[in-house]
């Protein structure tokens, strides 16, 4: 019985965190967009517009549920829930600190990738259910894009998993810092940093080709959360709003929540698998045990949050810099560039595992 209560509390806490993050992220996104374009962004509601997103969500909550008369009402009303649930369930396996994760699955990474793919069904439901050609076009683009980009993203992650030899997110993280138990950590395959830790022990520095794998994963993850420069599914200037054209009020809020939660989720997956997760970036230098001092429960949550928010910031920076890709360019980038490079990374990981880590 107590079990179930903890489950529910954890789920509510996660939802609260996602909602708070979305409020903060929408505000910071608008501010970043403003500053990049030499504007000020929201300034009127609250000091420096800080209450703007709170006012927005209050407005959305009060709005009426409107279903277009030609829409498939069941698909239309279920789609936002499916979209959000898919992303929300992805947070189940995310490690926050040593020993702290909503669920410690042995197949954590696999589960995460699998459950996030359900998002595509939700998007298609939203587009089809709206019975609107713009929505349908947007959702078809979204599905084509998400399914295509899952391949380089997945293979880039497999390249890292081959180095780590596990799909357990906690175990992958543990192998990138001073809390490693039985494995040796080699910086660039040469220097044993098992007791030095810090940034030197992160996966991207354990094997240099994982840096390329991370870049591939990062680009693919941008496409998976439908963000610029890969935002053709909701291209405002051509498709009105894409799959969420017909949505309003709380349903739209849920789609929006899912989009920002997805940003955080993919950033967190990248951070966990490639950038050391809850491990500190500060290494032990001689008697100055920076890594030992900055490892622990609170520090773990702190580092996870800081790293993930930095990656989310990078996503926003890219969004306000790069123009949208055309649909054919998008597919060409995925199939002709990212997928071959991801395969190359996977092959290099195999060689690295056999020759450098085991043989060396």
């Amino acid at each position, binding site marked *: 019985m107590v079990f179930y209560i903890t489950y529910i509390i954890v789920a509510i806490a996660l939802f609260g965190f996602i909602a708070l993050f979305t409020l903060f992220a929408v505000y910071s996104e608008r501010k970043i967009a403003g500053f*990049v374009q030499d504007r000020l962004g929201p300034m009127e509601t609250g000091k420096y517009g800080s209450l703007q997103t709170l006012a927005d969500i209050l407005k959305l909550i009060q709005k009426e549920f409107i279903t277009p008369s030609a829409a498939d009402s069941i698909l239309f009303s279920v789609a936002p829930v499916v979209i959000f649930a898919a992303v929300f369930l992805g947070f189940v396996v995310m490690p926050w600190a040593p020993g702290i994760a909503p669920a410690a699955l042995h197949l954590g990474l696999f589960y995460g990738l699998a459950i996030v793919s359900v998002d595509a069904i939700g998007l298609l439901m939203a587009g089809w259910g709206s019975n609107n050609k713009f929505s349908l076009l947007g959702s078809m683009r979204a599905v084509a894009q998400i399914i295509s980009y899952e391949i380089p993203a997945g293979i880039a992650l497999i390249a890292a998993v081959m180095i780590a030899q596990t799909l357990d997110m906690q175990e992958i993280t543990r192998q990138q810092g001073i809390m490693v138990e039985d494995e040796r950590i080699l910086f660039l395959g040469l220097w044993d940093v098992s007791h030095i830790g810090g940034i030197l022990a992160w996966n991207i520095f354990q094997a240099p080709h994982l840096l390329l794998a991370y870049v591939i994963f990062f680009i693919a993850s941008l496409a998976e959360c439908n963000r610029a420069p890969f935002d053709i599914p909701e291209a405002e200037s051509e498709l009105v709003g894409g799959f969420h054209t017909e949505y309003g009020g709380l349903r739209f809020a849920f789609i929006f929540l899912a989009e920002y939660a997805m940003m955080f989720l993919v950033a967190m997956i990248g951070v966990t698998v490639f950038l050391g997760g809850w491990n500190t970036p500060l290494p032990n230098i001689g008697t100055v045990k920076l890594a030992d001092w900055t490892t622990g429960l609170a520090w773990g949550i702190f580092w996870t949050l800081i790293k993930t928010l930095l990656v989310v910031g990078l996503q926003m920076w890219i969004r306000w810099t790069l123009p949208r890709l055309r649909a054919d360019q998008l597919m060409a980038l995925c199939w002709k*560039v990212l997928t071959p490079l991801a395969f190359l990374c996977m092959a290099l990981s195999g060689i690295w595992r056999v020759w450098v880590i085991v043989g060396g």
Partner: protein
Amino acid sequence: MFKTTLQAFITAAKGLAITLAHFIGARRSRHALDIRKAGYFDKQEGVTTVQFPKEKMPIPEVARYQLDVEIDDCIVCDLCAKACPVDCITIESVKATGVIGKTSDGSVKRLYAAKFDIDMAKCMYCGLCTVVCPTECITMTDLYDRSMTNLAELTYSFAEMSPQEVEEKKREWSLFQAEKEAAKRK
């Protein structure tokens, strides 16, 4: 293909550097700058937004904004209404029986301005009326923030005569006319 991709990464990096420079530059603000100052175009960096009702851009005293009429200087010649390309000026005149006064530049006034309305919703701020005005009584001012809740309030009336006065002046004129007719017939 890989050459194109490499090029894409290089140009993306350049673009990111530009946006980052603007992002960091946004710590500074240009504030409300006076365009008449010499250094106006040197300030290229920083936030350009002017938070309008709270701060305003300094503008010249007589700029191309809302029209103003000094009705005491008006000789009711109707030239401005004729010059107006959008016909936003409506003037009605009543003839006086004699000279009724002089404007500040010495022109003789022989007409009463019964009606002098400018529909600011129609006005296109070309300034042609101010060019043709012989007594320079119609001018453009530095006022531009005149939001109204009622459309009729955008029609500015500059005539100062009450309807009774207009009636009286009309009666005077027709009386004067009738007297003249009677004198001719004799």
